[in-house]
Every structure is written in C-alpha cells, then in structure tokens.
C-alpha cells in the first residue's frame, strides 16, 4: 500500500461539519417548497372543456374516465392510477387541465383519490385538506 501521498480530507471535514447547520429539513414541521411548474394534482376548468375526450384517449395509465356531469361529458381523474405525466394537459385543445403545486395526496381513504368534475358553473377545485 505504501505511504499515502496526502492525508484523507475526511479528517478535517468531519470536524468542520460539527459546527455547520444540518442539511436536513424537518418536514413536515417545515413546509416543502416546490418550484413553479411542478406536476402536482390536476386543476380542471369545466368552462373551457369541450368534451372532446382526447385527454381520456391519450392517458398512458387509463386514469381518465369520461362521465356525464350536469348534462356535459367531463373527465373524471382517478388519482390512484394517475402517473402525473400531464399528457392530458398537452392533448387538451382548450387547455382546460392545468397542474397545481399540491402534492400531499397520501390518504387512507381510497375514494378521496377520485377527482370528480364539478358542474360547468364553477371551477373544479382541490377538495382535499
């Protein structure tokens, strides 16, 4: 093995780290910041939707089901199947589907993972928390 050409830098590094702030952020007591454009939970605007069904057709995970709401064909998002790729937002010709920055979707109640479309008069909003 021979002599080492210089000393392992870990010796000083370990000691200096004792006096530095830890790199851990104490989530969930500290809020996690997500950048703009993060692919979180969907926000659907029924006023823009034209019921073409392209979102449902293009979804790679078959997570969008077209259902009748208030006399209009609207997409129902199965968030437990969704892979949050946002192909639906891209395929939508009227940009009725947008992403939000909400990502804390963990739940013990599977039925809360279904994002139902509201009637055409109001925006469909995140109904959780």
């Amino acid at each position, binding site marked *: 093995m021979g002599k080492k050409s210089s000393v*392992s830098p870990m010796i000083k*590094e370990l000691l200096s780290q004792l006096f530095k702030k830890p790199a851990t952020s104490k989530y969930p007591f500290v809020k996690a910041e997500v950048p703009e454009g*993060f692919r979180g939970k969907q926000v659907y605007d029924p006023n823009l939707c034209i019921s073409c069904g392209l979102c449902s057709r*293009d979804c790679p995970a078959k997570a969008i089901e077209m259902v009748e709401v208030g006399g209009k064909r609207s997409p129902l998002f199965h968030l437990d199947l969704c892979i949050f*790729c946002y192909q639906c937002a891209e395929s939508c010709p009227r940009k009725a589907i947008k992403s939000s920055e909400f990502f804390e979707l963990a739940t013990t109640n599977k039925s809360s993972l279904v994002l139902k479309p509201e009637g055409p008069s109001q925006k469909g909003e995140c109904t959780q928390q």
Partner: protein
Amino acid sequence: MGKRVQIQQAHLGKASIQVKADATKDAVKALLEANKNAGIVALTGLDLDKKIGLMYHMCTNGVIVTIRTEVPKKKPKIATISDIIPGAQFHEREAADLFGVTFEGHPNPARLVLPDNWPENLYPLRKDAKIDEALAKNETAPSKAEPAPAQNEGDLVNIIIGPQHPALLEPEKFSLTVDGEIVKHVEPRIGYVHRGIEKAAEQRTYLQDVYLVERICGICNSCHAACFVETVEEILGFDVPLRAKYIRTIILELNRLHSHMLLLGHAGLEIGYETLFQYMWRDREPIMDLTEMLTGNRVISSAMTVGGVRRDLQEKDVPKIKTQMVTLKKKMDFYHKLFENEPSFKMRTKNVGVLSKEDALKLCVVGPVARGSGVAIDVRKDEPYEAYGEIPFNIITRDEGDSWARLMVRLDEVVESINIIDYALDHMPSGPFRIKVPRVVAAGEAVNHVEAPRGELFYYVKSQGTAYPERVKVRTPTFANIPAFITIAEGGNIADVPPSFVSLDPCFSCTDR
C-alpha cells in the same frame, strides 16, 4: 457466402444484411475475423406470422451491423453463437424464453426472464400467444423442484444471495458455491422484476409508450425516453430542432449526474462507509431539485416527446443551474481527494473484482465497467446523438480494472457532465423546442443507442404504419454487464462480492424490463 447473404440498405452508422438461418454463424465468424473486438449488442426476435425473425445486432468499430435471419415458426431452431461470442448466452436465453426459439448447442438453456413455473409452450412475445386464456385457467408448468443445491460436497458450501438480501436493492438471485472464503462458481437467475414492458409497448400508442419506457428504470428514465423518441423520429425521418437537442442533452446529463452520485453513495454503504453515503446523497439533492425545476418532477422527468421536448428552458433558470454546477464541482474535488487518499476505502476497493481488458472485450461489457478496464467505448463519442457532436468533452478510462477504477471513472464522469451542462447552457441556440409529428407512424424500422449512466442502451422499433408500434426491443446496459459479474466474482473472496458487485452498478429493473 454468395447467394446466402443479401446486403440491405445501410445508413449512417448502421448496416444490415439478410442471411439464411444456417449461414448465421458463418456471418458472425466473418465479422469477428474482420474485427476481433466486435461484440453482440442485442438479439431481437420478431413475430413474422409464419416465421420468426431473428436479428443479431452486432457492434463493430462503433457501427451497428444487423444480421437478419428467419426460422420457421413450426420448427424454430438455429445454431448458437455463444461458443464464438460468450456474451451472447443471455441474449439467446431470452429469445428462447420469449419467442420459443431453440439455440442448438447452448451451454445452459434454462429460463432467464420468465418464472420457473411459467406454462410451457406459451411464448409471450409471439402475436398469437394466448396469455389471457392461460392466466384465466391459472395454468402453471409442473413445478420442477429446484435442483437441490449440491449438498456441501467436501468443502463446498452453497450461499444464496437474494432474491431478498440487504446487499441488493432489487431482487435477483445469485447462487454462489464457496470453498472456505473463495467463490468457485456463480449462477445468476434474473427475471424477478420482469414486467413484460416490451409486450405492453405494442398495445399502446407511440405517445403513451414514451411514458411507459420511461418507467423501465427510475434512475435512468430520461435515457430510455430519449432513446425511444430518437428511434421513432428516425423512422419518421424528422430531425428535431437544435434547441430541443441541447435541452435534451442537459436533461440527460443531469440524469447521469444523479445516477453516478447515487451509485457512489451506495458503494459507500456496501463497504460500510456510512459517512460517504450521507455526504454523497446530501450533495445529490440539489440535482434532484434542478430536475424538478426543469421538468416538474424530481425523478421521472417526462420531458421527452416525439418531436422535441415538452417544456422550454426558461432564461431565469439558467443562473440557478450554473451556481449549482460550480458548487458541485468543488464538492467533487473533495471526493476525488477522498477516493485517492482514504486508506480504508482503498483497502476495500483496490484490486477487488478485477476485470481484465481481454475479458471486458470478450464479454461485450459496456459503460463505466468497460471504461474502468481500459476499453474506451462511449456512444456519445462513437456515434454522437443529440448535441454531443458539438460539445467537447473527454472519455474517462482507467487501466486498473478493479472496483476502485470503476468508481473513479464514475466520479470523473460527474465532472465531465458538469462541463457538458455548462457548455450547453452557454451555447444554447434559440428557436423552437418542439415540432408537430403525426400520430400515425409510417411503416419502417430503426435502431438507436444512447449512453445511459450504466452504459450503452439500445432500442429497436418497428412500425407497421399504424399508431401502435409493431415491436419495441430494449437492450439495457446491465443486461450486458451481468455476465461480467460471474467472471469478477469467481476466484475472489466472498467478502469482496458486495463491493465488486456494486461497482458494476447493477440496475435490475432495467435488466428484466
């Protein structure tokens, strides 16, 4: 060979010839005579109705030469080439599993990717395979009792690593036969993570397939997506705008950065160096944050699409990326000094798991495993794709061939990636980042390869003129490197198995698809 061989169309970097089934071995021999360092890249099977097509993709001097042949479906037999190219063993076993082709003379024709109790005569990738029926009937093959591990004859003990083991992140089984502390024989069994992605890809449109192939591997997801979209674009004959190529390059290099740092931290865990693990993963976090900023998600980027990238690079993000790259470069200096000087780290990785240059070439290994043994292959230089042709960078090689060399190669590649990202940001062209492409792809086929963090990733896509691909074939780098593990482990100490194994950077989700 005269009329048994037909040269077909060749385009830049790729050529293909059609031979009769019995001439295949001669064709391969002729290729090896011309260049003894030629190796097999992949073996693609195709269901051609009454026949099964077999395509041997060989790599010679950076060019992919495809030797195509056909065997009748009723009697799918062909001579094996694993005696002249040992690296072909795994490929032939996979084709046997998925298409039912018998390779005469194969030394070990056992199942590779399908489970042992898969029904006989059910070949999933054939178009007429009645998989749903078989599942409904719950058919299974008569369970062949596992060959009882050789009852410790004399001093030989059988140790089974896996499928669940703290040293492995993903399940695979390695049966080691040990004599005292020396490993005598290694028998790998893969296929525990086989999800049938190649079959699933045939049932989804090209657009949906981009998201499917991304999920073959979480760590190198962008590379899978990039290779797939490039192959489809080649069939379409479109060239993406230059700005899209640069953005793709940046995302691919960020992918490489986080993958290499993940592995270096994991190597620390395997040799008991927790501090290295904690530091390396702490330094990896900013890369995940950058990926999140650019693509919307920390791990699975979903940034590639046929025709370009899905999002543009915002001007305001560029300074953030640049500052992180500067910080990371300084940290890499620290790790470099650490790897060079830390005595216990060197004691665990130097001269451990040595792979000689001859073995590396014979087994057709790829990626940092090959580069750590002195074989200078890198798809980014051999056949530049995306923007790599315009960006200057170095291929890192080391001659020692031990685990230390392989880890150092990855460490230095991190620095090269940082330089590539800096250059790409400085020379980012303006213009569109995406072009519209038709949903229905004209008939045709193409092959493509990219340099994933673990090595050369190879895709073959065939289109029949519909919106659904006819065949998608994926050859992942770890699939090519697993035979190298057998060579490395045999003859070594059993305590050296975890470090040498982790220095190969195995990713079993990739291997099994």
